[in-house]
């Protein structure tokens, strides 16, 4: 999970990444990831998630501010 967060933090615009394990299964772990920053390249985030062998199941909260 540490590597996973480290890789996500390298995406343009990302200033902070936090992750909490929500559920542990036989084959998979469900993790809630919170990414904060300005002008986050979300497509790149999805790409990095896929590269790390994970999948984005849902985007639960989005904040836009001036």
């Amino acid at each position, binding site marked *: 999970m540490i*590597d996973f967060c480290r890789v996500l933090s390298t995406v343009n615009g990302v200033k902070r990444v936090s992750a909490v394990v929500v559920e542990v*299964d036989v*084959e*998979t772990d469900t993790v809630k990831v919170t990414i904060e920053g300005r002008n986050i390249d979300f497509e790149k985030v999805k790409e990095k998630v*896929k*590269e*790390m*062998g*994970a*999948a984005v199941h849902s985007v639960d909260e989005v904040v836009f501010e001036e």
Partner: protein
Amino acid sequence: MFNLLKSSISRVFKYSGAEEYSRRYAVMNAFDGVVTVLGIVLGSTLLGEANARSIVAAGIGALVAMGISGVSGTYMAEKAEQERRIREIEDAMLIKLDKSVIAEARGKAAILSALVDALSAVVAGLIALTPYLASLLGLVTAEHAFILSLTFSLSLLFSLGLFLGKIARRNILWSGLKSLAIGCITILLITLLNLIL
């Protein structure tokens, strides 16, 4: 360069979980390499007319065969297992892992396991064969080569036992002695065969 290689291998193990298998292949095949050469040395010396050249030729032939067999067999077996595991994870996650670090690491893990399999047998066997190579170069006599080869083989078996004991967190000396016993049993059986024949 060495640090790069080390971190590369570490990454493969981290994402594939193949460290345990590689360790197993290393020990198993080191045993194979040493005991095979021990058998050739003893068989040639006790049962037949042995000279350093024929022992080295037979030993190297056997080690080459073991290396090729090890690399090809292990690669195919490991590749199949790793692919099976990737499919299982894909089924659980409902995504394809084709371009992920997991798929990459598991592919490399198969190659790494195959190399470990081959190299461990070859290196261990060569250690046991070294005195005869030295004898060919005129550095030691054939008689000394025999004694040295036995000593190297038994020492290597003992060391492998110590290593296994350390991994299992058991009494390492007892583990070493058990491995040494394998070498002694090999010597005993071939000597008995010599008496019968």
